[in-house]
């Protein structure tokens, strides 16, 4: 089983240490809600909004993978479900605003004049909003229940998740008349009545995303230090021992998996107004791996590390790939190899690793996390 011991919180030794978390959180809040909107242009801010969506996924990844040891390689599925749920509502709202009954793409590629039955409930904003989170969670619960109950091993679970991601992507592409096919759902004009063409509203979307991220980070942090959080780590590090102590590890894992799925769904839902599109390209195997890599680079078990890692990788992707498309691919591959292979605690553990090395207590990164 995958283990990382580097980031388990040290017992608070100083008063300073006690306020490290709230102070850090306050700093993050000031940066995201105060500094960034003032310092960045509308365009850069909308890019940041997109990266923050990936960061929200990373919060869930940090919980399920970092703390629970569950290799969640199907986050694209949940991201996509949340995104499509939101986009379906917004497309219907756009159509209604112009007096149409069908979204634009259905008029072009559809087969009839009636809305498919499974689209209809999404006209209701409350239902659609609930679905952005509940749908991914339900799918995760269904999959996870059997998988964890039957003690499916990590490798199986990872490949299973990938198969599911591939299946959903192919299905969405194949149902062009009702899902928009490869195009996905595009050209979204409004967000609950507010025009997305207006930069002011774009900023609002950013604020919502940033606030959601901060809230989820706070919630995840509480979960990490709770009794459940301890149990989750125990399951990750020694599932058998937890079982012998009388807990059911399957349930512990299931909770983390379902929460992570819900977060990915919410991130997908927020991605839609921020970027204006959701498509099968965000769902398949490659994006699903992309969702965990940011967390891996930053430090999967460290919440802040995972979030910053996700933002940094997304930023690097969009900045470096223009200037050096070939070199960026090498760098990306190298990042996977170095961050995961040699620094399993991610960049967040770099300080600890270096300190250990200086003190001569550790033999470097290689031994880290190889406790059985």
């Amino acid at each position, binding site marked *: 089983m995958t283990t990382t011991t580097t980031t388990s919180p040290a017992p608070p030794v100083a008063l300073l240490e006690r306020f490290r978390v709230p102070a850090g959180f306050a700093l993050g809040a000031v940066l995201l809600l105060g500094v960034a909107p003032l310092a960045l242009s509308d365009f850069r801010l909308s890019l940041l909004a997109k990266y923050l969506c990936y960061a929200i996924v990373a919060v869930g990844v940090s919980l399920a993978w970092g703390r629970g040891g569950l290799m969640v390689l199907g986050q694209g599925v949940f991201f996509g479900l949340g995104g499509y749920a939101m986009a379906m509502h917004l497309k219907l709202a756009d159509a209604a605003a112009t007096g149409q009954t069908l979204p634009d793409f259905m008029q072009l590629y559809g087969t009839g004049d009636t809305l498919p039955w499974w689209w209809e409930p999404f006209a209701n904003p409350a239902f659609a909003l609930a679905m952005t989170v509940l749908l991914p969670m339900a799918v995760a619960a269904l999959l996870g229940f059997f998988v964890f109950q039957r003690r499916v091993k990590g490798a199986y679970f990872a490949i299973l998740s990938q198969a599911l991601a591939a299946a959903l992507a192919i299905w969405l592409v194949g149902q062009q008349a009702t899902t928009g096919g490869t195009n*996905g759902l595009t050209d979204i004009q409004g967000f609950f009545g507010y025009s997305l063409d207006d930069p002011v509203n774009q900023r609002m979307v950013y604020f919502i995303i940033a606030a959601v991220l901060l*809230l989820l980070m706070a919630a995840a942090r509480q979960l990490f230090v709770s009794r459940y959080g301890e149990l989750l780590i125990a399951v990750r590090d020694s599932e058998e021992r937890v079982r012998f102590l009388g807990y059911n590890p399957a349930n512990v894992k299931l909770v983390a998996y379902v929460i992570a799925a819900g977060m990915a769904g919410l991130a997908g839902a927020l991605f839609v107004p921020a970027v204006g599109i959701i498509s099968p390209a965000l769902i398949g195997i490659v994006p699903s791996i992309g969702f965990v890599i940011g967390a891996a680079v930053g430090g999967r078990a460290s919440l802040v590390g995972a979030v910053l890692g996700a933002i940094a990788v997304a930023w690097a992707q969009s900045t470096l*790939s223009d200037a050096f498309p070939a070199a960026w691919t090498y760098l990306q591959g190298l990042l996977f190899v170095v961050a995961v292979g040699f620094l399993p605690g991610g960049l967040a553990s770099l300080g600890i690793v270096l300190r250990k090395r200086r003190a001569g207590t550790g033999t470097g990164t290689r031994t880290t996390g190889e406790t059985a």
Partner: protein
Amino acid sequence: MSGLSISRRGLLAGISAAGASAALSACGAKTGSDTSSDSAAKADTSGSTVKVGLLNSLSGTMAISEVTVHNALLLAIKEINAAGGVLGKKLKAVSQDGASDWPTFAEKAEALIKDDKVAATFGCWTSASRKAVKPVFERYKSLLFYPVQYEGLEQSPYIFYIGATTNQQIVPALDYLKKQGLTKLYLVGSDYVFPRTANKEIQAYAKAKGMTVVGEDYAPLGSTEFGTIVNKVKDSGADAVFNTLNGDSNVAFFKEYKSSGLTAKSMPVLSVSIAEEEVKSIGTQYLEDQLTAWNYYQTTPGAANTKFVAAYQAEYGKDKPTSDPMEAAYISVYLWKEMVEKAGSFDVAKVKAASDGITLDAPEGKVTVDGATQHVYKTARIGTVGADGLITEVWNSGKPIKPDPYLKGYDWASGLS
């Protein structure tokens, strides 16, 4: 521990309050209201150079095709600069990588318009990427020149469609097949917008003109198993296959097709997405004598083409073929130049107004911009693949065909849009 959590809660309350107040103080425009005044982006044309955006996939699965278009665009810009630029200003190409990912295309389009303040953007290949950037160009009222044949049924005021629409490629191809007496068709395509829309039109055409469609099959993009589809084609008794497969799938399809014993003689395949570049990667062994439908081939006669092919090969290598989308990309820059010079300004509204009737002696022959649809009059050309990998024309429409993206001029297509 309790003190800690209280302070955290206080903090959260503070933040949510801040968020809420921001929400209240900054209510933007509602949907449907006019926001044009502040969202239209202004291109920066003040200096001695003018930036133009190139938006192609330089990485990812589509890079194979899109890099060639990118090269053709760069060639046109280089030539224009060597000849003095546009309105006395040199062009500066800003390349952004769409990375074969549609949301990335939208992001990069915005970067070109807002950060680089380009005067116009050239690029996109797949319909999906065009659909993804369309709202961006419309929001900021900036121009996109799209160089690839596509499925029609679209007419954005901020996109110029330089590739063929269906009535300049698919309809003439059907006319040709009908004339050859090949009236029983089997439709094979990749599972995405272009093949599905094209096949809908083919079905309508066949119904009205006494042709029959004996089968219709789609493979997921990138699919490499064609055993079943080829079996079905073989058993269908079709006269010809109309092929709208894209990319890698063509390789697997034609290899399977040949090994099942089907040939260009027994059942010809007419492809609309296989150009010179693709022929090279599939192999002439599998493609010889099969049909293609485009508006341009490397072998198309004319001085303009001789010059284009020579210039391209001098720039990128003797063995590099030129193809229809590359040619369309190449002329799109020239067409924009003509529009700007006729308008005497880089202003988008003026350029659009000046576009109607712009004519160019292009490598593909004479092309004329139709201002009403923002498409281009193009000559349809059917060709066959030769043993040398080049495509030779066997039929053309004689004169440029007026673009008709919604097929309004065709009775049989009345139920389509």
